[in-house]
């Protein structure tokens, strides 16, 4: 008589863990939000610049290529900043060679970053009108400025740019 109840309870216990726990993971939530920002940025870009489908595809492809290169630079710089933070802890003698190499490399990365931005602009100029390029510049600058402000506002983090 109680077989259905027992079977159902057993099924519940087995299926319980199938609840998408990963969806509640803060990292997964952050990734979802990051994708939302990317999607919204792409949508705004298409609308505000009045891109045709062909332009949209080409612009995204160009930007994605340069984004990968910028990502590599950003990662390297983050690693160097951590090195500097470790070296410059109060009360611990810093290794001048390590600090010197890190700061020189950060300076090189900044130059490379700007060169990439310029190369990207040249490539975008083959797809977009000057006005569209300027609109894209302003749109992206607004996002990057906000990102930088947020990084600067982190506790214990002096502004570095």
């Amino acid at each position: 008589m109680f077989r259905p109840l027992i079977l159902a309870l057993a099924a519940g216990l087995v299926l319980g863990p199938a609840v998408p726990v990963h969806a509640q993971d803060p990292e997964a939530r952050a990734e979802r939000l990051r994708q939302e920002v990317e999607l919204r940025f792409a949508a705004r870009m298409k609308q505000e610049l009045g891109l045709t489908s062909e332009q949209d595809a080409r612009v995204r492809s160009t930007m994605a290529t340069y984004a990968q290169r910028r990502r590599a630079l950003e990662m390297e710089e983050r690693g160097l900043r951590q090195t500097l933070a470790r070296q410059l802890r109060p009360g611990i003698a810093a290794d001048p060679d390590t600090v010197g190499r890190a700061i020189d490399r950060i300076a090189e990365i900044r130059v490379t970053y700007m060169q990439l931005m310029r190369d990207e602009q040249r490539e975008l100029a083959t797809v977009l009108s000057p006005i569209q390029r300027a609109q894209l510049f302003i749109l992206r600058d607004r996002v990057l400025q906000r990102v930088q402000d947020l990084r600067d506002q982190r506790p214990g983090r002096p502004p570095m740019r």
Partner: protein
Amino acid sequence: MTPAPHLSERMPAVALGEARWSGAEREHLAGCAECAAEWEVVRIGSALGRGLEGEFDVDRAVTGVTTRLASEPARVLRMPRRRWLALAAAAAVLAVAVLRAPSGPRVEPATAAPVQALLPELDGLGEDELEQVLLVLPAVNRVGPTVPGLGDLSEDELETVLETLEG
């Protein structure tokens, strides 16, 4: 930005044209993604079915339903004991599932299609920071363009903008 519950309560009235947003409320909606999304749903929802009354004969439908209810004999729902047990089992499963589910607001899992990464600068930002970034990118069609138009710039001003771009 913190969601404002009183705004939620006023949304139906505003959507139906019975009330209007105050300046402060409008300002909050412009800055709070959560409230703006809720307002979008209420606004669109209130417009659904508008004009349907012209095509749907309400009086005829009401008469038909009441006549049928009066003519049909009432049916008493009788369930065998075994069904009651199955129902209780289903409720137990539901309770187990609810109790085992993690608490906190849910986020939809990432979409299957990969999103093209155009902004690597977002890497390493936390949830709160990403929500702040979203605020500078209003959803398309929600508000007007936020990038200033360049059509009213003079040639000199446009050249200055281009010089900035080209370094």
